[in-house]
């Protein structure tokens, strides 16, 4: 069999210099020679496919017929088609993309000589797989988790046992309230106060642990220098988008700047079927061979996790990550994440990169948001990792082992904070979640209404996550251990509970301060009063202070004075929490879309990228 280089040289498609350079790159990157020719722009993909067909003695077909039907395929067969990138054209013909000698041998072993292998382009093959398996894959993307692991699905907001417990609790509370209102209110106050005190202590510990320098030194430049490009695995990058064509150039540019062999990137723009604007923009930008467009069929619920589940079925990478459309990840993030996977335990399933904002200076909201994110991602999450407890993943830049992700059922399309849920679910399955000291910059919300929509969705999602994983509290305790259970209560449960009770407590305090009333005295018996005072004085001050300290790792010192306005931000959080709670009952799966591209900085970035 002739070599590919010889064939292409003979055809005059490449020069000797091209071949020499490509061979050198092949040695460095450990990929197929043909991929390098395409990636370097020496060959067009179809030219490579033709040459490969010629090399392997196979037929090449540029365009596959539109009459192909795949309805008869079973689920495992469909999975195999996606994994192998093959497509049955008829009983005797099998279209195949990304051919290699090994792949052809393997397929011939499986199918024998009766089936003819026909080489085609990846684009053609994927297009027909999309079309042919559309209903099947769409169904899987919505119901895979609900059918495989129904107890982890948020498709049901509250299960029967929870309803019964809620009913008993509510009845008993009302009964108690009726019999002895003040003692009931006192009991509630005791619970809330103790919860807040412990929550304060827990957050203090997290801040303390997260402030240690070692959490920022997890992957050092010298560690990355040890990585050999030839050994790097294929990495899938999903970019789910919905009606945000204007920011597309930002992510395209960021992806182009990634320090990772381009041949090993499997980039997929995940677009909704009815999002014609973004689709058109993506085509306009000629995203090329290595950036695929996955169009998600219209179905309910229309959520990001569902879109990601759909795209996950086409993922070819050993590892997978997600970026939002306006994301600017650090160029070496994939390598860092891979290094962390290599150093971590075998059951390390996902690594969360840090998130922060590029438009922190824009207005008050972006400043507060930046401080909040800095604290969350730079202090809290690394501390959670240190404690070996569940980490709620952030919206983007979470790096998965693809097979582990599939093993736990992918994202929950009914959960509107599917990332947070997934972090906890991984722990329940016995996997661990880590963090990596690499940052992705995003666009902070600049608009109050947009922020409330986004935050109410997050808080609703936290409520969903809490309800899902607390369906069997004792089982959860046994599975993840007391420390992780405790952390789950205060980090997930505490987040929305605090947001809900804060305005009530402020209200009581404010009313008492202004009116001097003694009506609340029965609720504040002496020891409880001291705890409440601790919360009021120490707790509030601490949380403001920690916001100030949160920006230190990023040296955004100019934000420090703004931390004084944190209580105002808490009230906004409470407003969003109330909305989230309301939606949990009225419209639990509704995805409050966050509109991107509103920032002046984003517009500038788009301009630069374009």
């Amino acid at each position, binding site marked *: 069999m002739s070599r590919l280089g010889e064939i292409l040289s003979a055809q005059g498609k490449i020069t000797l210099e091209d071949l020499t350079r490509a061979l050198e790159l092949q040695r460095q990157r450990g990929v197929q020679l043909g991929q390098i020719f395409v990636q370097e722009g020496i060959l067009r993909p179809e030219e490579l496919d033709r040459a490969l067909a010629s090399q392997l003695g196979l037929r090449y077909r540029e365009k596959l017929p539109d009459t192909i039907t795949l309805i008869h395929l079973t689920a495992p067969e469909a999975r195999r088609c996606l994994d192998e990138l093959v497509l049955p054209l008829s009983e005797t013909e099998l279209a195949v993309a990304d051919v290699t000698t090994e792949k052809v041998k393997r397929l011939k072993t499986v199918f024998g000589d009766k089936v003819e292998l026909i080489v085609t382009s990846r684009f053609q093959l994927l297009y027909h797989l999309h079309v042919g398996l559309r209903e099947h894959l769409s169904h899987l993307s919505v119901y895979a988790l609900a059918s495989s692991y129904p107890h982890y699905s948020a498709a049901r907001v509250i299960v029967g046992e929870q309803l019964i417990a809620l009913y008993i609790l509510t009845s008993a509370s009302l009964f108690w309230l009726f019999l002895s209102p003040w003692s009931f209110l006192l009991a509630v106050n005791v619970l809330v106060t103790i919860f807040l005190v412990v929550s304060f202590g827990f957050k203090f510990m997290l801040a303390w642990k997260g402030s240690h320098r070692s959490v920022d030194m997890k992957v050092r430049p010298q560690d990355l220098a040890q990585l050999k490009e030839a050994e790097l695995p294929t990495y899938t990058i999903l970019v789910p988008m919905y009606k945000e064509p204007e920011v597309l150039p930002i992510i395209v540019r960021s992806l182009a700047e990634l320090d990772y062999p381009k041949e090993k990137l499997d980039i997929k723009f995940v677009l909704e079927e009815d999002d014609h604007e973004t689709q058109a923009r993506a085509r306009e930008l000629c995203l090329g061979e290595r950036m695929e467009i996955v169009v998600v069929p219209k179905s309910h619920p229309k959520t990001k996790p569902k879109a990601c589940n759909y795209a996950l079925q086409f993922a070819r990478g050993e590892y997978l990550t997600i970026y939002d459309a306006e994301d600017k990840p650090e160029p070496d993030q994939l390598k860092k994440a891979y290094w962390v996977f290599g150093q971590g335990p075998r059951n390390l399933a996902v690594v969360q990169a840090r998130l922060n904002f590029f438009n922190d200076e824009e207005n008050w909201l972006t400043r507060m948001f930046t401080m909040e994110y800095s604290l969350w991602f730079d202090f809290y999450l690394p501390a959670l990792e240190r404690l070996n407890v569940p980490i709620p993943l952030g919206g983007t830049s979470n790096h998965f082992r693809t097979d582990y992700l599939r093993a736990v059922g992918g994202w929950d399309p009914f959960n509107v904070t599917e990332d947070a849920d997934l972090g906890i679910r991984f722990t329940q399955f016995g996997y661990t979640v880590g963090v990596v000291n690499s940052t992705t910059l995003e666009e902070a919300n600049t608009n109050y209404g947009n922020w409330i929509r986004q935050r109410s969705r997050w808080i609703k999602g936290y409520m969903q996550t809490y309800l899902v994983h607390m369906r069997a509290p004792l089982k959860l305790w046994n599975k993840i251990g007391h420390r992780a259970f405790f952390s789950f209560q205060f980090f997930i449960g505490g987040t929305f509970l605090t947001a809900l009770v804060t305005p009530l407590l402020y209200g009581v305090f404010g009313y008492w301060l202004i009116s001097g009333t003694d009506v609340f005295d029965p609720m504040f018996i002496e020891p409880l009063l001291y705890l409440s005072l601790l919360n009021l004085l120490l707790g509030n001050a601490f949380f*403001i202070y920690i916001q100030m*300290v949160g920006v230190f790792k990023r040296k955004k010192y100019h934000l*420090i004075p703004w931390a004084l306005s944190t209580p105002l931000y808490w009230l906004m959080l409470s407003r969003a929490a109330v909305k989230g709670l309301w939606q949990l009952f009225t419209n639990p799966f509704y995805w409050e879309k966050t509109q991107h591209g509103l920032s002046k900085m984003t517009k500038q970035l788009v301009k630069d990228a374009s």
Partner: protein
Amino acid sequence: MRPRIGSALFLATFFFGIVAAGLELRERFFLPALELRLWGVQGPALADPLGFASYLSNAPLAFHNLLGPLMKLFGVESFFLPYVLILGTFTFLLAINLFRVEAMGQLGLRLLLITLCLSHPEALEVLTSNPLALLLLIFLWLFTKGLLEANAGNLGRGVLLMGFSSALLVLSGALGIAYALALFALVPILIRGDLFRESVSGGFLVLTFPAAAALSGLFYLGWLYHLAPGDLAFMSPVTLSLNFEILPWLPFLPLIPVLAMPWGRSVMARIFSLKTPVLGILAYVFASALGKEFSLEAILGMTAIGAGLEFLNRQQLSLFHLLAAVSFSAAAWLSPVTVHQSPAIRGSSWHALQAWVRAGVEGQVMILSPRHTLMTLGAPNRHEILRPGGVNFRQRLILGNFQGIGRLVVEIPKGRAAVDTLARYQERYFFSPPKGLQLVFDDETFRVYDRNPKMAAPRITEGPLSKGLPDPWRLIRDVFTGVLFLGGLLVVGRRSINSERNS
């Protein structure tokens, strides 16, 4: 700082803190009596009027024999000797450790210098003269550790530690506040990196916020419980009055750049680029807090240290710097300083007096300290008569001379009505007096007897080497101080000229 050294420091601090606390408790019971013994007071004359007979029987008399020579050696009174020894050892240990790290080239000499500042008699007095020494020790450890963390590149954790330490410090009272302010002024020089270059207001805010929050919390609690802040835990009674003088300093530093941006920022940046004036302010704050009759030489010495710091900040470690630092520190050590002791008491007499002041009752207060009781044996003119609310009264509060109160006699000439006013105002202390408080009441005279066993009287002392020196030796000391001071200036000046030439 290396973890082992940090841990050693922590353990040392912790250990000494525990010892200090234990000693403090012990002091409360038998040392005053021992002190009285040293003055030659014996038998019923000692025990009966003050009620220490039961404690005396337990006093370790062997310790007493050692006390006299040690007191003379260290130039401190017996009551404070254990603290001086312990904290002296601690600061020495700290200095040695820092010096070791410095010698390894990991830290700036500034840290060594600040340690020397902390071991200065004034600072040591603050630490040793107060029952809150444990709190101050924890502060010292937290602050130093925070500083080391910050300079080792762990700024977030360093600032956390320094912030918490500042909150603790202000809770320790007015001296703590003064000390905190002094340190806040120093922080821009001490912390490496670009925190203060990038945001002066942010830098100060992050360090002062915990302290401000702690103070606000105390004032809120005071308001809530109708108490003076001095009634609350950790607050020295002296704090109450001193706070009002020192509080304006707290918002001063962060507010200037915030309110007057951008020129305020540039002014602050300019000031901090000079640094030495900041040290002058620092010295003033120190001296103001430590006594009204502060020593000009001390301020000059501290300002000179500032000049030294300014150069040290920019240069590598060298013998010149070390010499300069040692000279300045020695000069500051030697310069005569007036120090007013301010051990806190939480005696009920203080509460009674406070209530009385707030009630605006006219009358006369006679303060009879145990020292006065003693002095009446041979010097009966040591009692003081003050009018509450009057200038003298305030001054005495500010000077912190009430800590030695052993017995308070309040005479109210206006009769029952005034007493009722007073009683309503602080009924807690008058109708349910705490243990140790005796209440004598009749139509004409209202008497509160407090038998607080802590018997430290206000006193004046000087730097240890100058204590009790005869006149010719004082001259020698002053000359020596001057030589050291000028020598330090010379060293810094020469270094400055050299560095200018080189640049």
